[in-house]
């Protein structure tokens, strides 16, 4: 019995590895420390930074451009509203004028083409209808449509184009 107990007491000499003890201690108390003061400081910094970023984002979204107008050292001429208005009005007028010109050109072209086509028809077929110019001016387009329909019955588009070219 005594011998066994003596033998068991020798187990008291077993010691953990010094390196393991140091690592384990550092791991345990390192975690604890960072949770303490440093953890608190870090958390506050993070919170402050997130609030600041959120503020900047909101300002940029809602009032970014107008603020930039006042704060920016460079004047942006494109952001001058009166200038923009005047420019927009000028553009509208130009468009109207161009439209007018375009309509006029279209009408002249229509008239010329109907004249030449009807003349051709007269020459080619005796059964062709009366020329369009005998009708009233207001019915010019209507007449030209019926005329064109009839022409398309007798002459093909290729032939008409060929004739026009001649």
């Amino acid at each position, binding site marked *: 019995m005594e011998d066994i107990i003596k033998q068991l007491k*020798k*187990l008291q000499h077993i*010691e*953990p*590895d010094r390196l*393991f003890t140091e690592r384990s201690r550092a791991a*345990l108390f390192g975690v604890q420390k960072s949770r303490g003061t440093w953890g608190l400081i870090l958390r506050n910094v993070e919170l402050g930074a997130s609030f600041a970023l959120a503020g900047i984002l909101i300002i940029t979204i809602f009032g970014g451009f107008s603020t930039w107008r006042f704060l920016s050292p460079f004047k942006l001429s494109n952001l001058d509203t009166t200038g923009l208005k005047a420019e927009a009005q000028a553009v509208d007028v130009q468009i109207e004028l161009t439209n007018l010109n375009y309509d006029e050109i279209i009408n002249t072209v229509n008239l010329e083409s109907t004249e030449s086509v009807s003349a051709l028809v007269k020459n080619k077929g005796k059964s062709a209808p009366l020329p369009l110019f005998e009708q009233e001016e207001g019915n010019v387009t209507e007449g030209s449509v019926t005329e064109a329909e009839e022409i398309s019955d007798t002459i093909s588009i290729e032939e008409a184009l060929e004739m026009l070219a001649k």
Partner: protein
Amino acid sequence: MLDGELHIIKRAVEGDSSAFGQLYDHYQPKIYRFTLVKVSHREEAEDLTHQVFLKALQSIGSYKDLGFPFSSWLYRIARNQVVDYYRTRKETVRIEDTDPDEMPEKHPAHDKLADKIEIERTQKALRKLKPEYQDVIMMRFVEDLPIRETAIALGKTEGAVKLIQHRAIKELKKTLTENH
């Protein structure tokens, strides 16, 4: 028991890490020895010891002094850790079935070859005992814990501890004689 242990424990409960450090320095070798006898490898014993103190650190805030020694609380955590270790281990090998000859242990603190051989022989014999017997022998004869503390740590009555102790010594003597 550590000098002024009650005061140190109180400080540790209040969150003083240096107080817990003192407890760690005092009890870590004991817990390491306890786990080393229970598991087969030094590395595993180190892992378990670290886990025991990590758990202790996490739950020290809820520690209440109910008149039980602090060591019994730590041993209880250590025993649970060892139980978990065997439960979660993939290849379930009973500690009694393992061959101690295949588990060479390094003890850098021991330079004397004779002592080293003697220690290894005792360890091998201990590993062949029931876990319950190992617990009682380690607590009573290696760590010199009183019967009361051992009984609290193991959740048994003092009478039961005395009985286990008697049987454990008898069994260990038999094992040591067989191996000699």
